[in-house]
């Protein structure tokens, strides 16, 4: 099952209570649970916002926007009710960390939601968990029920006079719904089609009211920041990239698993020391550094600090923390194809560049990988991807384009090796029928 692993380099903040039965509310209380929210109840909302801003906490879902800053966009006065929405729709390929938070420390998410509520003047929060995570939804349902029973949620929480409701919400299978505006549409009972921005959710969100949407790991980090202080959290990582994060190591590694490491940890060290190096004693070929939406890195590019800013400088993204390691036996054309297949399937269909672009690219890459490719296809794949980039209604188009462009650029030779009807050099002999070459 979803076993826990560990490594001496880990700095356990969000994963502090993993494996300690913290789903039980009494255990959670023993382990400093619900102390942070009581502290927050005694603080000015602006003070909480500034604390989180100064901690350097940035969105752990992938976009990496400063959390405190996002909270500060919520207007003080609002004719419509304000909401907190926890994004537990974890569906980015390579990412399996929120799952562990929901499984081992659901109360920390509840507590983070309430603190966000106090900081922004909201009185209701929703915890949206993807449909496939049904067992985790049930754990959350129980946690919420237990918190209500103790008076930690509902009217007059902790006897403070502040009201705060928390509700669970289950999805039904859709990657795009992890995009914050599509998440709101889904929660409102509709197809997960994203909304135009501006207005941003913090100003116009759920049912028109100001809504703060944060990833589950982001919210789970908040109580620790309240208790440990902004300075402590900020110092764990490089400047402006404070804290630790859960990294999901997967692929051709000896020790795949979810590890909590300080922001700024070196990727090469992560792969070889924490992840135990490439399985089977093979050579590293490529790394997906933060979920499939990120440009891939070659084996020469992994000496990089895993924080938001350094990764952007390196031409990729920290993303969702999904580190997928690819060895030399993998065909990068097939890898690009599988990634495009995913985005084509998950494209919501609303806007032409993404709907048509992902489909066109999937068809081209399929034909190409099966030996039906011509030289101009290689440039065309890059051209089509670049025409999606920045031109779609939501970042899914970018997410499909960026890895594709990086693979074509960095592994062009592999594409060229598929030309002229040649069978894939990495495929086991006789597995696929070569497609007709289009002249």
């Amino acid at each position, binding site marked *: *099952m*979803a*076993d826990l692993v560990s490594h001496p380099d880990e700095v356990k903040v969000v994963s502090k209570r993993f494996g300690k039965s913290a789903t039980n509310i009494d255990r959670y209380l023993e382990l400093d649970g619900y102390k942070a929210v009581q502290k927050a109840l005694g603080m000015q909302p602006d003070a909480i916002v500034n604390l989180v801003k100064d901690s350097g906490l940035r969105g752990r879902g992938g976009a990496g926007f400063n959390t405190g800053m996002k909270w500060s966009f919520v207007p003080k006065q609002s004719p419509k*009710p304000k909401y907190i929405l926890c994004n537990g729709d*974890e*569906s*980015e*390929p*390579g*990412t*399996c960390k*929120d*799952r562990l938070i929901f499984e081992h420390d659901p109360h920390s998410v509840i507590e983070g939601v309430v603190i966000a509520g106090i900081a922004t003047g909201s009185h209701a929060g929703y915890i949206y968990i*993807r*449909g*496939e*995570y*049904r*067992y985790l939804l049930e754990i959350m349902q129980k946690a919420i029920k237990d918190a209500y029973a103790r008076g930690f949620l509902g009217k007059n929480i902790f006897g403070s006079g502040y009201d705060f*409701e928390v*509700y669970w*919400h*289950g*999805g*039904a*299978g*859709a*990657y795009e719904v992890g995009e914050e505006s599509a998440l709101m549409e*889904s*929660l*409102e*009972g*509709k*197809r*997960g089609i994203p909304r135009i921005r501006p207005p941003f959710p913090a100003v116009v969100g759920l*049912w028109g009211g100001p809504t703060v949407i944060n990833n589950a790991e982001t919210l789970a980090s908040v109580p620790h920041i309240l208790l440990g202080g902004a300075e402590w959290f900020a110092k764990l990582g490089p400047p402006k990239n404070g804290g630790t994060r859960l990294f*999901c*190591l*997967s*692929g*051709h590694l000896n020790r*795949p*698993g*979810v590890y909590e490491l300080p922001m700024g940890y070196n990727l090469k060290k992560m792969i070889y020391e924490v992840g135990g190096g490439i399985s089977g004693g093979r050579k590293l070929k490529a790394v*997906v550094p933060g979920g*499939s939406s990120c440009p891939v890195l070659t084996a020469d590019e992994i000496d990089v600090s895993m924080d938001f800013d350094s990764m952007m400088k390196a031409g990729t993204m920290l993303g969702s923390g*999904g580190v*997928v*390691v*690819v*060895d030399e036996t*993998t065909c990068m054309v097939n*890898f690009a194809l*599988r*990634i495009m297949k*995913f985005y084509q*399937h*998950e494209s*919501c269909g609303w806007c032409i560049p993404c709907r048509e672009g992902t489909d066109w690219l999937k068809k081209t890459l399929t034909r190409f990988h099966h030996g039906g490719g011509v030289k101009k296809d290689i440039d065309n794949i890059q051209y089509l991807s670049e025409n999606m980039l920045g031109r779609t209604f939501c970042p899914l188009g970018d997410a499909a384009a960026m890895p594709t462009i990086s693979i074509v650029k960095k592994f062009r030779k592999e594409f060229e090796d598929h030309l002229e009807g040649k069978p894939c050099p990495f495929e086991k002999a006789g597995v696929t029928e070569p497609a007709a070459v289009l002249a």
Partner: protein
Amino acid sequence: MQAQTKIPRFARNDNRCYYHAMKFSDQFEARFSDMLTHYPTKRSVLVPTLLYAQDEVGYLSPDVIHEIAQRLDLTELEVSNVISYYSMLTTKPRGKFNVQVCTNIACMLRGGEELLDHCKTKLGIGHKGTTPDGTFSLEEVECIGACSWAPAAQVNYDFHENLTVEKMDKVLDEYRKN
């Protein structure tokens, strides 16, 4: 729950002028009433309700769609429109156990595609197929959030991870016994 007659979806719209009223389990009804109090609009309960209804009935039949639409003041078209977006929802009957094998990147790198092919051969069905005895359905799915324990699959809601072909066979045998 009433017995369903097999009526093609589009023909149903034209031919039938009556529906069987649906009553779900007590647990469903209690949860449904509770959920309605959680949101400012009735419609907001739609997506989780559809999945819970599907869990009970096996699929989203025309009667289920009609019932839910009625309860939420929506047209059946609007409900069908929403259903078609979400990959876990189905309007066709499925096997008792839906075997969902992930072939996305982390699982693909650790044999997910071979695992899927093995299931196709062993069960004798393809993607979205159902065995003739109605025990198993098979689906190739996208990332289920088990990347660090790949290759992985779900059977209904149960996770099965760190799979090999042999382990998969044992898993299927366990379900078949039930």
